């Protein structure tokens, strides 16, 4: 009997035992990603219908991030018997083994949603035993499944928008590192958007608390809420209070994940969280630090009353990768967002 034989014996036994353990408890390692989206069994039936399976539920946010006019359906998965824990600031606490699932798609014709859609990408944040892991899945041509893509991808998408205009984008799927370009708090991976102010809408949090999905939810009056900026129909004629609430929510949803003292854009000294009370931190009459040609020959982040002298707007209006903001996730200009921010700066 050689040492090699014993080694093989022990290894084989180990493999068999692990397989048995895996089968009998029906657990999947929470740290190993699936190669295909279908492997998680987050959805039942036809995968692209996104019908949630047990333990998976949909959620909505108040101030969504603009990503090239993609439509989104967002879900949370909680392992049986676990729940989210409420925190007033920052992302809720997620139990190990849970996941956040965000699906990006385009309706072929946005004014006629019944006429089919194209699934582009599904992003999954897995809460593993040591922290969060970001994974991107790209949908196949047949729309039957999506496969893991660590190094990202680029592909064209065509659709008709609500005004009947034919649209085109070179859709960019971020690579794993780019995910953290936004999902970062003091250099550690963090979810964005699953916080009290974003999720506090349509009684969503209360319903979760009632069904045991969320613990430690305080009195409704103590829960912060962002304003749903998409409800402002006509920013140009909106009153100043509404504009302030809408614009600050827009900046929170689209900029503050990086532009906060703990985010990747802390280097800029410009902080755009909705709770930011310091006007200079917000960029008002603040000279840029390292904007380079991103300044567009303008002198300050925000010049009250003068959107066309404000660097903030210049960077929103650009599609040049060296100028545009946000740096990632936007190839197209967000016209509605620009109208809102322009009206807000003008109203100052």
């Amino acid at each position, binding site marked *: 009997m050689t040492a090699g034989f014993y080694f093989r014996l022990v290894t084989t036994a180990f493999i068999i035992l692990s397989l048995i353990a895996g089968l009998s408890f029906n657990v999947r390692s929470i740290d190993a990603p699936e190669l295909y989206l279908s492997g998680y069994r987050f959805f039942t039936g036809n995968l692209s219908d996104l019908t949630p399976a047990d333990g998976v539920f949909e959620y909505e946010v108040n101030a969504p991030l603009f990503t090239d006019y993609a439509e989104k359906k967002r879900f949370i998965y909680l392992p049986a018997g676990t729940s989210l824990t409420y925190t007033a600031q920052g992302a809720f606490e997620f139990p190990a083994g849970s996941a956040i699932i965000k699906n990006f798609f385009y309706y072929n014709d946005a004014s006629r949603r019944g006429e089919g859609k194209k699934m582009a990408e599904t992003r999954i944040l897995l809460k593993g035993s040591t922290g969060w892991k970001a994974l991107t899945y790209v949908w196949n041509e047949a729309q039957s499944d999506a496969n893991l893509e660590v190094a990202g991808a680029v592909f064209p998408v065509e659709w008709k928008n609500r005004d009947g205009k034919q649209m085109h984008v070179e859709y960019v799927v971020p690579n794993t*590192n780019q995910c953290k370009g936004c999902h970062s708090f003091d250099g550690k991976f963090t979810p964005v958007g699953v916080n009290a102010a974003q999720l506090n809408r349509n009684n969503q949090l209360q319903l979760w608390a009632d069904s045991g999905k969320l613990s430690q939810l305080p009195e409704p009056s103590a829960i912060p809420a962002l304003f749903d900026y998409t409800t402002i129909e006509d920013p140009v004629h909106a009153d100043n209070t509404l504009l302030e609430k809408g614009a600050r929510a827009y900046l929170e949803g689209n900029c503050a994940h990086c532009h906060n003292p703990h985010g990747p854009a802390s280097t800029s000294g410009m902080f755009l969280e909705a709770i930011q009370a310091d006007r200079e931190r917000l960029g008002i009459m603040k000279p840029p630090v390292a904007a*380079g040609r991103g*300044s567009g020959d303008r002198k300050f982040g925000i010049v009250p009353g003068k959107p066309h002298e404000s660097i903030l707007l210049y960077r929103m209006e650009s599609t040049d990768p060296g100028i545009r903001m946000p740096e*990632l996730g936007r190839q197209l200009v967000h016209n509605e967002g620009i109208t809102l921010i322009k009206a807000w700066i003008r109203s100052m």
Partner: protein
Amino acid sequence: MFRLFSVRLLLLFVFNPVYAQSDVEKRIQTQCILAEDGDIIEIPAGNFSISGTLSLDEKKNVTLRGAGQDKTILSFKGQKQGAEGLKVTNCTNIILENFTMEDAKGDIIKTQNVSGIIFRDITARWTGKPDESNGSYALYPVQCQKVRIERCTAIGASDAGIYVGQSDSVWVTECTAKNNVAGIEIENTTNAWVWKNHAFENTGGILVFDLPDLPKKRGGHVKVYDNLVARNNYRNFAPKGNIVGTVPAGTGVMVLATNDVEVYNNKIWENKTVSTGIVSYYITETPINDKSYIPYPSGVSVHDNIFSDGRRMPTLKNKLGFIFWWKFGKRVPHILYDGISNPDWVNADGSFKPSYRICIGENENGTFANLRADKLSLMSDRISRDQTHFNCNK
């Protein structure tokens, strides 16, 4: 038959480079994502066109290595996504070496929150004529500790070629910076040594700045020595709004609002406007809102440098240059102090209290002027050549 096939295969690679290149990009990026502790990622020799930011995140002891500055050339000319060429974030002990990166849309190499970062034998440049549309920084470590930049070349940045921001423990040595707005800039950074570099034909050669509104408040403890800082007379092509846009063409070394800076043994030659400036933030004529910010330089010593003799015509496109020309014609003094200080740091007779001294030692051809400007206006008619209070040896 087999030979014919290989020739065809070879032709396929020669005439179909796009396919091969995007392959290389994907391979480098995948290797960067999957890299394990201790890995060396080799980038082969060749000219590669890269379409998006390459990135390393949360890695330890990883080396990214090309086949040589003139052999491995990554061009970002057709960049479609990401603002940087290469981005390294939240890492420990990373080495970048032996390659060239050029024409990124934003910064060429940005490293943020990295402890232990070496840039070695790297060229980072914008090709073509220096232009406003070039990106900001060629080599850009920010919020890093233990930074070493050695034998690197930075060309054409519309802000700074080698820009070290909000970092600690920094070496910049044997580097060349050319045709940038600022050749080498040390900003809000502590414990930086800048020596044996060659900064030439920039707008400003070597800048040591402390700026307001930043998370890392105070830089300082900076040494600038044994450098050749020559002919930094290039027109200022920084986009407006950027602080380096206020630097006059013809600046050799400039210390702005920083404390404990020693500038010595440098050859500072043929910089037409300010060979060496020691100035407050007020010189930028930008309002200060940051209440914790100290806008004055202190503990600055300039000694044993060699300035070139001869007449120079200062730039007239900058207020400072204009004042110089108005006052001195072509006999522009080499060492300029703007004279704006914290009143609490100065004694009644005008001399500095010990720890706030501005010291001007022996310098070859080291002519001196104190602008004696005030916070509200640079246009000073009180310029003094008196060096008494700046002599720290008496």
